[in-house]
């Protein structure tokens, strides 16, 4: 059976523990990406990686603590929700390294970021940058003055996607309208594909031709709607092309796998350092998919324009907002 790793710890190996967010394995999204990163590290670096899916609430800290107490070299929490727990544990276990995917860095009263403890790496992604590009893409190939966005649970992280996306749309098409909808306000909103499908169908029906989703499993309903109405959707976190071949315009990929792999590699090499690691377009930490699958959907001129926009963002010529 899958996932039944041995609980025994080999003291000589490099042991890594990864704690998933709600959704866990098989979310076809960022938990899976973290899993891929871990697996790759096991294969290529010979480290031992174990996973826990704590579920909700107080179990998050407990799960991290189980790994820390077992003497793991590196403990990774996947999801912004782990932020406080990671800080707490990093202080308690100064000899263990920690990393937090989507770690949210607090700011002091002057608005400057408060650095995490020295043994804690905050792996942050500038989703708004990638979202900006797919927004621009949606506006350019959508052949419609309306473009869609479907979010999962209405929360700051997801609003960041929305903000970047909207900015991207308006950048290339100032009079375009972004129809942004959320599937709900509780974590259920990330696993309600039925709702996602209905939201998408109503947007498509409303004249939208492209929808970007940032909604976990709910987005699978968006793809379903795209198939059914022969429209386009944009995937998130991972390359979601295979969810609806022919209907996935692109995906806004977050390099969670690479970031996780890097963190493990640095621990293995002994070069691990705490601090804020911000992955944006420049680091290839976020990107949009452009490959043989979707080439046909994206005219060369559009691809060229996107590359230009990408360069502008990296160069700081375009400032992408993080809140809608």
């Amino acid at each position, binding site marked *: *059976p899958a*996932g*039944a*790793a*041995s*609980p025994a710890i080999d003291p000589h190996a490099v042991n890594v523990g990864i704690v998933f967010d709600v959704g866990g394995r098989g979310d076809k999204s960022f938990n899976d990406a973290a899993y891929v990163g871990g697996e790759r590290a096991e294969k290529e670096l010979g480290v031992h990686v*174990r996973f*826990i*899916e*704590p*579920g*909700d*609430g*107080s*179990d998050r*800290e*407990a*799960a991290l*603590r*189980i790994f820390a*107490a077992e003497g793991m070299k590196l403990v990774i929490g996947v999801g*912004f*929700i782990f*932020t*406080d727990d990671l800080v707490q544990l990093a202080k*308690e276990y100064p000899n263990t390294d920690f990393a937090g995917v989507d770690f*949210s*860095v*607090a*700011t002091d009263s002057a608005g400057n970021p408060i650095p995490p403890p020295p043994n804690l790496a905050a792996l942050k992604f500038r989703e708004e940058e990638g979202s900006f590009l797919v927004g621009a893409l949606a506006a350019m190939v959508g052949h419609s003055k309306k473009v869609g966005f479907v979010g999962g649970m*209405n*929360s*700051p*992280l997801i609003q960041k996607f929305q903000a970047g996306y909207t900015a991207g749309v308006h950048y290339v098409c100032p009079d375009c309208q972004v129809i942004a909808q959320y599937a*709900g*306000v*509780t*974590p259920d909103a990330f696993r309600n594909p039925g709702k996602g499908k209905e939201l998408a169908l109503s947007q498509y029906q409303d004249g939208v031709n492209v929808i970007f989703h940032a909604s976990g499993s709910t987005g699978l309903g968006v793809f379903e709607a795209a198939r059914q109405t022969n429209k386009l959707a944009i995937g998130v976190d991972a390359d979601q092309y295979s969810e609806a071949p022919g209907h996935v315009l692109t995906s806004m990929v977050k390099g969670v796998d690479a970031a996780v792999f890097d963190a493990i590699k640095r621990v293995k090499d002994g070069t691990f350092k705490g601090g804020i690691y911000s992955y944006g377009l420049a680091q290839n930490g976020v990107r949009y998919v452009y490959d043989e699958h979707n080439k046909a959907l994206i005219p060369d001129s559009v691809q060229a324009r996107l590359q230009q926009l990408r360069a502008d963002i990296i160069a700081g010529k375009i400032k992408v907002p993080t809140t809608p």
Partner: protein
Amino acid sequence: MSASAGARRWRAQLEEAVLPAVVALLIAALVGDVLIIVYGQSPGEVYRALLEGTWGNAYGLGQVLYKTTTLTFTGLSVAIGLRAGLFNIGAESQLAAGGFAAGVLGTLLPPGLPALLVLPLFIVAAAIGGGAVGGAAGVLKSKWGAHEVITTIMLNFIVLALLNYLTVAHFKVFDTLHTADVRSGALPRLSALIPPFHGSAANMVLFLALAVVAVAWWYLFRSRAGYELRAVGLQPGAAEYGGVNVPGVWWRAMLISGAVAGIGGLNFVLGYKHYYEDGFSTGAGFLGIAVALVGRNNPVGVVLAALLFGTLSQGGLAVNALVPKQMVDVLQAVVIIAVVTSVPEVRRVLRSARRRGGPEA
């Protein structure tokens, strides 16, 4: 005659208290075995891991106690409702509302006040938060006859959405789903008293829970209001005949039930994280029903049942490496089902066995 009758009643009560948990556990263990074997693991090993991860070390025990604390509040909340004949399925949102009220109060207080001084304020705030939600269902029932099972379920959805809105739109710390830290009133962890508990979330709210249990016991079984409340639960017609304002008891019971659940929010907000976090109450409400049931709606029984369910839910984490922790979700449901079905059956068997055994010594 009276002495032996008293002894018999006492034994019956003891049996009443212990039997459900024992039978339910046996059945749950059986189902657990099946699931574990299906998953290709050895039940012995999984259960050992479960015990070691919970009662096997001080940290695990501390985690169990932390969970027990919340479940004691929600279980007590459901139990109080049931004593009045009302099914409060809304402990989850009441817990959240109580926690939210406390969290917001915590951000408003000036910093540096001693915890013991402001604790009463927090208790009142949390009780008002939870009580408002429970009381709303109570008033809906007393005034308009809307069935509380349905209204509390609907209120769960409504209140959680409302709290989400308030958190996201007004109170959150940037980039998170929680409020700012409380500035006064944070309570120490249990490890401040007993160092081996270090790291576990167990905290002083545990003692508050025990105090609330004692008060609830007194209220239910020693106070006049409790006498009337239980009468309403057992036989509303007789209570009405006895001069009790039945709808009045309904809404008051729901108010108290909600308030107790609300105070439970302090466990997370004051005792553990020191802020309110959206979604912290997930699952605690439904488990509260199980706790009340296994605890036979008796405050003391509720504590024991909360300990049982606290152990199971912490145990899920401990066995995660061997089997999916979902197994524990299944076991919790099985415990509930076992209590409502097999326990009366076993009791019948015991009773007839005793009768066959002839008059007892």
